[in-house]
């Protein structure tokens, strides 16, 4: 699992997968635990958009509010994405610690392995954000087949 021509000895011998799991726990408790309860309320407040100055003829105020509206939109999006990224990072850390139970395994993990874990976590988290589509298979739903 080493690159071609790389005859160097194992790079890091003191990797402890439990530390990765601890990192995931820290993220979950401290980072996710900080963002998750706070971000939705902030998003609600900021997503209301510009709430004043609509009737003002002030050119300066309108110019400022145009920029400010953009700030609100992007900030709302950013808060959502930060939360998503933290979720993904927690999943990645958990998955790494689960996949590599020993330090040797973790040392030998390839970039492709880590990428796969990251992509899997991205897919998992993003899939959770997509509302399920109706399948038409409900008891009280019309039958199409």
């Amino acid at each position, binding site marked *: 699992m080493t690159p071609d021509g790389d005859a160097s000895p194992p790079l890091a011998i*003191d990797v402890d997968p439990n530390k990765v799991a601890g*990192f995931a726990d820290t993220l979950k408790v401290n980072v996710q635990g900080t963002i998750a309860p706070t971000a939705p309320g902030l998003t609600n407040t900021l997503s209301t958009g*510009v709430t004043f100055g609509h009737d003002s003829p002030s050119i300066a105020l309108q110019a400022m509010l145009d920029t400010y509206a953009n700030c609100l939109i992007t900030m709302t999006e950013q808060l959502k994405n930060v939360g998503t990224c933290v979720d993904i990072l927690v999943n990645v850390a958990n998955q790494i610690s689960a996949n590599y139970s020993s330090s040797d395994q973790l040392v030998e993990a390839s*970039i492709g392995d880590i990428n796969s874990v990251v992509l899997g976590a991205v897919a998992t988290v993003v899939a959770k954000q997509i509302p399920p589509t109706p399948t038409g298979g409900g008891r009280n739903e019309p039958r199409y087949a």
Partner: protein
Amino acid sequence: MSGQTNWAAYDVPLLAGILDEDLSGAWEQVGAWFSAQAMLDDASSRLQDARDGLAVVWPPEKSPTATVFFRLVDRLTESMKTTSLASNANGNALYHVLTNQDATKTEVDRLHSTWSTYQRLGSANRQDLPDATEWQSALNQQAQQHMATADEVINEYAATLVVPQVVPVVDTLQPQTLIPDDDGPQTPVSTGRGSSGAGTRLPARVNNRPARHNSPVSPVDGREPPILSGGEVTSPAHHQLPDGAANAMPLAPLDDSQSGHVATSLTPASAAILPGAFDGRSSASPGVEHRGGVARPPSAEGGVNVANGAESAAPGPSANTASGEARTGYVGAVPTSSAPASRERGTSIGRQGPTISAARLRYRAPGTVLSSELVLGADGTIRPMPSQLGAQFPYALSTVMSHERSRSVRSAQEAIGPCDIGIPIHPSGARRPSDSPWRVPTGGPTVLVPVICADLHDPGPGVFGIDR
């Protein structure tokens, strides 16, 4: 930052009205900005601490995989910090603008109060008051000056607004572009995207799929849906469409050999229209019939009208009911006692040789069941069902023309003008007796739709004592 507002056009009452607005929502946003800053500061510092702790035992400088992982962490941390700074700047700017607005409002309200007092005194004909023009001009000038000053403050803080950078979820966390055939630690190649550098606002890519997931997968069955040549996607899951949604579906030819999985390509040109969707509603849009999860090929001209020995397209919504006569596979038991009436109309489908051309039926696959008694032959001609040979075959299609549908056909003909849709209409408008050779119960179904129960369980022989 921007042009000057001509405040001279506004007097005190008008300015007081402009400034008289509720700023509570904006003040809440000031709090939200600062809360966001605090949240992001806290989260980023905790993330940084956790990262540093992990880096001690998994040093990124010694492990390429750790480098990849920590790059993700670092990008997120950096994004949090950048957003925190932007939140602080925006909250600060909004705070000062709102404070200034409040101060301006207070001043203009004071002037407005004076204005009102002068007005009341003027109406009382007080002789010691100055001329109205004088005090109004003086008050207006003061109010306009306040507004101009407010504009300066607004311009000052508007320049400090910072549009936060949106961290793209996929691009940031899609770590590296891998060198092909990699199977071990190596130097990662940066994708060149997802940088959190300042000055560039990257769009969110929440819905983007990673590069490895470029094959669309049906969310229902997890299979990769077949792609039609028209670029549309069809799969059994996608065929489960709500009413009307089938109108936008590409078509696939009938292929019963692949139960529920038809993936034959059809060009848009061959995507013909079958008015009358599965639910029996009229439709002038392209549609398909869906049965058993299979997209059925529609007819080309909106169905077949067999009366008068001719078939014709029946354009327009009003004609679709008529076109629905030839909807395949849904004709139930057909009375046969009305043969003479059908003959009177000159039905050309006869025992000796059905004359509906293959061209008119070219969008129906050979073997398509036209009724309980008719089937479309391989050469495009209509043939009797094997079980119906010897029965009253020539009049089978005509029997589909029930009382209600004949009326709909006539309405369609009246709506679209004279055209050959098969049913002659008496100039008086009265229905000829032959148009309704039989009657069906009012309100009852004119067509019996066979119930296809896909989940019917057949235990098979030898089970539970069934001896077959």
